[in-house]
């Protein structure tokens, strides 16, 4: 009963972690995942979210075993 949370790039540096293993308790949406994993840190306004490597909105529902990722705007190419 857990989900994996991953952080990338400048967000990973600012929060000081690359990933969290979070108990799947009191979590409905992607927004809840951020709050549970980062209790003292407000969600930066510009970050994007993905569930199982697909872009989602913060109201997207999360299921047990999902991989949730947070990251800043992408800058490849």
């Amino acid at each position, binding site marked *: 009963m857990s989900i994996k949370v*991953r952080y*990338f*790039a*400048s967000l990973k540096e600012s929060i000081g972690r690359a990933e969290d293993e979070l108990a799947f308790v009191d979590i409905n949406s992607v927004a809840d995942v951020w709050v549970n994993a980062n209790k003292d840190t407000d969600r930066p306004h510009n970050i994007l979210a*993905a569930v199982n*490597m*697909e*872009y989602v909105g913060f109201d997207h529902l999360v299921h047990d075993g999902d991989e949730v*990722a947070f*990251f*800043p*705007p*992408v*800058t*490849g*190419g």
Partner: protein
Amino acid sequence: MEIKIVTEPFDPWQEIQTFQKSAKQMHGKYGATSIFVGTMRDFNDGDDVKGMTLEHYPGMTEKQLAHIVDEVSQQWSVLDVLVVHRVGDVFPDQPIVLVAVWTSHRGDAFDSSRYIMEALKSKAPFWKKELLQSDDLRWVDKNTDGYKAAGNK
């Protein structure tokens, strides 16, 4: 269709030649090839840049690039596509990205390769961290909109 994320410097012209030779199903069919190569500059945002590190999200990057190539195949008549993108430490004059599209006619080649590049810039999870001449490190905070930038000039 081939999507490659590479950790070492690559030669886009060699990649194109090798791919084109092996893509036998399109031989005799392609009349147009559109090629885009993105190369690292030694300046950005008014500063001299010595190098950069490209981070990505393994798995998601490939997945999003595959979606983009699928979208292109649905909108245009495309025979084959090759996308190569660097990660790791990159230095000025080294290629960062190659997008090559083979089609029967030029309109499809131009339009689909432009679409792939713009979609890659806004959706493929890569992030650049620059090493400035001053030795400061700086994350690139966002990509510009290629269509808007071209229209404003």
